[in-house]
C-alpha cells in the first residue's frame, strides 16, 4: 500500500479492482418510490376520466335530450346497481356469464395456441392456412350464430362454439405474427448455441414471440367477450339468467335503469380484465425485456 511506484502494483489485482470500480459506476441503483405512490400515480388518471364521463352523462340527462324513463341519469342508475347487487340476482347473472367467458375463452386459448404453434412451425401449413386464419379473424362472430344454433340448438354449446371461434383466430394470429418477428440475431444466437428444430422453437422462437402472443390473447379476449354478449342476447338458454338475459329482459320491460346498470357491469368487467390481467402482464413483459424507458 505504501509503495508508490506504479510498476510494482500486481497488474491482475489492480485491473480486477478497476473493473469492479467501473461496474459500480455503471449500474448505480436509484431508489424507487413506494407502492402507494405508484398505485396512486397509475390510478388517478383513470379516476379522473371516470369522473369526467359521469359528469358528461349527467349533463346529457340534464339537457333533456331524451325523457328520464328512456335515459336515466347516474343518480338513478347507481342505486339500481347497488340494489341489484344486494339482491344477489346481478351477482348470479355475472357469475353465469363469467363462467361461460372463462370456459369459452379457455377453449379458444388452447385451440388458438396449438394452431398458431403448428402453423408458425410448418411452412406448408403456413402457406395453406395463414391467410385463412386472418380471414376468420375478420369474420363477425354474429354471423356464426345461425350455424351454431343449427349445430347445437339453443344451448350452452352454441354459445361456447361462437365464443371460441371468435377468439381462437386472433390468438393463433398472435403466435404466428410473433414467430415472424423474432429478431434473426436471436435465432442465429440460439442456433449457434446448438438449438435445432423443436428445441430452437422452445428456446428462442416461443419466448421471443411472447409479447405478440400476449397481444393475441388480449385481442382474443375482446372478441370472446363481444361474442359472448351477442350470444347471450341471441341464444337464451332456459334457467340461465345471464347478463345477456338481464339486458334482454330490461329492454322487454322498458326498465331503463336496469338496462344501463347491466351495461355498466359489462363495461366494468371488460375494463377489469383488460387492466388487471392483460395490462399487468404486458407491463411485466415490457419491463423484463427493457422496453420501458427508465427515465419516464
Amino acid at each position: 500500500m505504501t509503495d508508490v511506484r506504479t510498476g510494482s502494483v500486481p497488474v491482475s489485482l489492480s485491473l480486477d479492482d478497476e473493473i469492479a470500480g467501473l461496474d459500480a459506476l455503471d449500474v448505480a441503483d436509484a431508489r424507487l418510490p413506494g407502492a402507494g405512490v405508484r398505485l396512486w400515480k397509475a390510478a388517478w388518471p383513470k379516476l379522473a376520466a371516470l369522473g369526467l364521463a359521469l359528469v358528461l352523462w349527467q349533463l346529457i340527462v340534464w339537457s333533456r335530450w331524451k325523457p328520464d324513463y328512456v335515459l336515466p341519469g347516474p343518480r338513478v342508475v347507481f342505486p339500481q346497481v347497488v340494489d341489484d347487487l344486494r339482491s344477489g340476482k346481478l351477482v348470479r347473472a355475472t357469475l353465469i356469464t363469467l363462467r361461460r367467458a372463462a370456459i369459452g375463452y379457455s377453449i379458444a386459448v388452447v385451440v388458438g395456441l396449438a394452431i398458431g404453434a403448428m402453423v408458425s412451425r410448418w411452412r406448408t401449413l403456413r402457406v395453406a392456412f395463414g391467410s385463412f386464419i386472418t380471414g376468420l379473424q375478420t369474420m363477425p362472430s354474429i354471423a356464426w350464430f345461425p350455424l351454431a344454433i343449427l349445430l347445437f340448438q339453443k344451448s350452452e354449446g352454441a354459445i361456447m362454439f361462437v365464443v371460441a371461434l371468435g377468439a381462437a383466430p386472433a390468438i393463433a394470429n398472435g403466435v404466428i405474427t410473433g414467430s415472424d418477428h423474432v429478431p434473426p440475431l436471436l435465432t442465429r444466437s440460439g442456433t449457434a448455441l446448438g438449438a435445432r428444430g423443436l428445441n430452437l422453437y422452445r428456446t428462442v422462437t416461443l419466448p421471443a414471440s411472447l409479447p405478440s402472443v400476449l397481444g393475441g390473447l388480449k385481442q382474443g379476449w375482446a372478441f370472446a367477450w363481444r361474442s359472448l354478449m351477442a350470444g347471450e342476447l341471441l341464444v337464451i338458454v332456459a334457467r340461465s339468467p345471464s347478463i345477456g338475459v338481464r339486458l334482454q329482459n330490461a329492454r322487454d320491460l322498458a326498465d331503463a335503469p336496469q338496462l344501463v346498470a347491466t351495461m355498466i357491469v359489462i363495461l366494468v368487467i371488460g375494463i377489469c380484465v383488460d387492466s388487471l390481467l392483460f395490462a399487468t402482464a404486458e407491463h411485466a413483459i415490457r419491463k423484463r425485456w427493457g422496453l420501458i424507458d427508465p427515465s419516464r
Partner: protein
Amino acid sequence: MTLLERAGGPLVDGTELAVAAAGDGATKRDAILLSGVGRVFRRGSTRVVALDGIDLSVRRGEIVSLLGASGCGKSTLLGILAGLDQPTSGTATVHGRTGLMFQESALFPWLTVRGNIETALRLRGVARRDRRGLAEELLASVHLHGFGNRRPHELSGGMRQRAALARALAQDADVLLMDEPFAALDAITREVLHAELERQWGERDLTAVFVTHDVREAVRLGDRVVLLSSRPGRVAAEFVVDIERPRRMEDHAVNELAAVITSRLHAEVQRHARD
C-alpha cells in the same frame, strides 16, 4: 521476432509455409480448413460477392486474428464457420464444436444473465443440477459475479458483452469464433478480458478465430493475423506473430508489428480506392 508476410492472393502453399514456420508440421490436425470458400448474396437483381475463394487453415490450439475493412465479409465468414450459413462455393471444414460470439451481445432479453448462461449449458447437455454452479463460475471468470440476476438490458454494453463471452465459454467449444467481441469495451475491461481469454485458451486447448478492427488487439491475441481484402473478400496477407506471451497491448514488439500490418492495411484500402 520473426515476421512472415505472405502478400498477394490466397496461395495454398503459402498457408503451408506459415504452418511450417510455426514448427508443427502435420502432427497437429487442422481445426479449420477452408478451401476456395465463396459466399454470394442476392440482393434483388444484384449479386453481392461477400467472400471469394478464401483459403485458410487454422491449426488446433491456434488463435487467428482476422482483420479487414468493414464489409469485407468477416462476419459472413464466421457465420459459415459456425454452421449458420453455407458457402456458395468451396468447402469449409471445422473439426469440433464451435462457439460463436456475435458483434452485438445477442443475449436473450427474456432471461437473466444467469439464465442465458444456463441455457447454453443446457443445450450443451449439462445436467440441471450442475448448471447453477458452472454458471456462477463462468460469471466470476468474466467479473460479473453477483450480476447473475440482472437482465441484459440492466447492464452496460460492456458488461453485456462480458456476459456474452461467458455464454460463449459455456458452450465449451473446441473452436471459439469471436466477432469483434470487445469493440465496445473500455481499455481496462478489454485488457482483463484479453487475459481471461488467454487463460481459457490455455486451459481448454481452444482454437480461436478473433475478428477485430483494432490492429494492436489482433497482434496482442493472435498467433497469426490474417488480413482480408474487401469486395470480394479474399485473404490478402498473413502475418505470424512470434511474440512471447504474456503480451500486452503496450508492448514494443506488439506495436512494431501492428505498425507493419497497419501500413499493409492502408495499402489494401488504397488499392480499393484505385479500383
